[in-house]
């Protein structure tokens, strides 16, 4: 028997979002690999589509009834959820367990990252760094703080209008002025061309989807694509090998067990020193057609 909780509007909606995101993610993943799409605007738009579209298609009214699911739907996922596994165990038990596990692991990862972050101080900020940061457009009042960490760390926080850049002692001691200028340019690029708003908007969308694997994967890939975009902005008119060398140092300083972080750094380096235009993609008309087609198709999966 499928438990009553599955017909609750909230759980049902979250499951529908996860289902639509998984199907859309699979189609887009295979398509992107078939086309051999490089990093760039097309991939970012597709990943944003993957995060946003399922929230819309899952909310289309009139699909939640079992009559619709049994008589009209192209796929009724309740049939899959009811598949027996062992004893009384069914697929919906497995889905609930996987969802709970993903939620706990993600919350733990995000919390541990926040708790491990060393405290930064705005005292003893080198004047050259302060000048380098504040001469960037829009960063005239940027707060600069120094973290005591020995590893290479340069990051930003805050909100538009009140940005804050944190550099570690390790970064100041290891990087040359040229390297540091490129790294600051990279961080500055995150705050240009509405990138901050887009990233944080999609972060909220991801949070609303309650940690299902497709959304977590799509958001992580989107963040990586934004990093690649900001790398390209930072090295414009400069030697890309300088930033690639910094990234490789960070790579070697990253725990070997942190496979995801190292893979992301590796990809950024490959794109930086790789050949070809970064933004070669598919035409906007194709992307719009893909979005409309999936907007019309996904509601038939319940």
């Amino acid at each position: 028997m499928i438990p009553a909780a599955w017909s609750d509007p909230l759980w049902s909606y979250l499951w529908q979002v996860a289902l639509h995101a998984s199907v859309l993610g699979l189609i887009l993943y295979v398509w992107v690999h078939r086309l051999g799409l490089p990093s760039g605007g097309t991939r970012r738009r597709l990943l944003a589509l993957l995060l946003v579209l399922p929230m819309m298609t899952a909310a289309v009214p009139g699909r939640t009834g079992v009559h619709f699911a049994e008589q009209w739907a192209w796929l009724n996922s309740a049939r899959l959820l009811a598949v027996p596994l062992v004893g009384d165990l069914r697929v919906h038990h497995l889905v609930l367990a996987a969802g709970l596990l993903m939620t706990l692991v993600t919350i733990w990862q995000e919390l541990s990252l926040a708790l491990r972050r060393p405290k930064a101080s705005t005292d003893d900020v080198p004047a050259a760094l302060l000048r380098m940061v504040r001469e960037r457009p829009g960063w005239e009042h940027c707060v600069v703080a120094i973290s005591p960490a020995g590893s290479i760390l340069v990051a930003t926080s805050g909100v538009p209008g009140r940005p804050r850049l944190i550099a570690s002692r390790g970064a100041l001691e290891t990087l040359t002025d040229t390297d540091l200028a490129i790294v600051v340019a990279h961080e500055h690029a995150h705050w240009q061309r509405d990138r901050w708003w887009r990233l944080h908007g999609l972060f909220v969308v991801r949070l609303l989807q309650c940690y299902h694997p497709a959304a977590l994967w799509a958001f992580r890939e989107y963040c990586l694509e934004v990093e690649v975009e900001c790398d390209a902005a930072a090295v414009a008119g400069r030697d890309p090998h300088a930033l690639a060398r910094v990234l490789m140092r960070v790579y070697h300083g990253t725990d070997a067990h942190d496979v995801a972080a190292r893979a992301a750094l590796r990809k950024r380096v490959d794109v930086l020193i790789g050949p070809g235009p970064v933004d070669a993609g598919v035409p906007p008309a194709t992307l719009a057609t893909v979005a409309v087609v999936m907007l019309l198709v996904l509601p038939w999966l319940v």
Partner: protein
Amino acid sequence: MARLAGLRSFVVIAAAVLGVLRLIHIAVPIVLPETRQGPIALARLDDVRRTVGFAPLLPAYHPEFLGADPASISVRFSPRPASIVVWRAGNQLLSVTQQRGGAPPAHPPLARPFEDVAGSTWWTDGSRSHLVVERGGFWIHLETTLSTRELRRFVDTLSER
């Protein structure tokens, strides 16, 4: 067509994925019939109409000791859409199964009409009484451990919820 470059491969891939999903949709209930038939447990009586498309006919009367709210509400979809509402208190039971159309529920050969209820079929099974009546294209199967007097009151007060 340059404006729609790459669309053909997308359509092929999407069609292949959706084709596989349709195959799963059709094959799963054939291989595992229980995945289609339900029953699905519901939390509220209001959910019955939403899930199977009709409001259940239930006795307006039922003894106080059975409680106001049913002990369980469920629906199934095969072979015919049906709702099953059960009240339970200790050993006492009242179950109302309502099936849309189809053949009447199976009954033993010795079953007979119940008192003066037209078109009814009544029989007993140990301590349980069963009564099947037809109402507006639905088969209503009442099953109870209570007396025939109570059963009569149940069938007389059947009304839409």
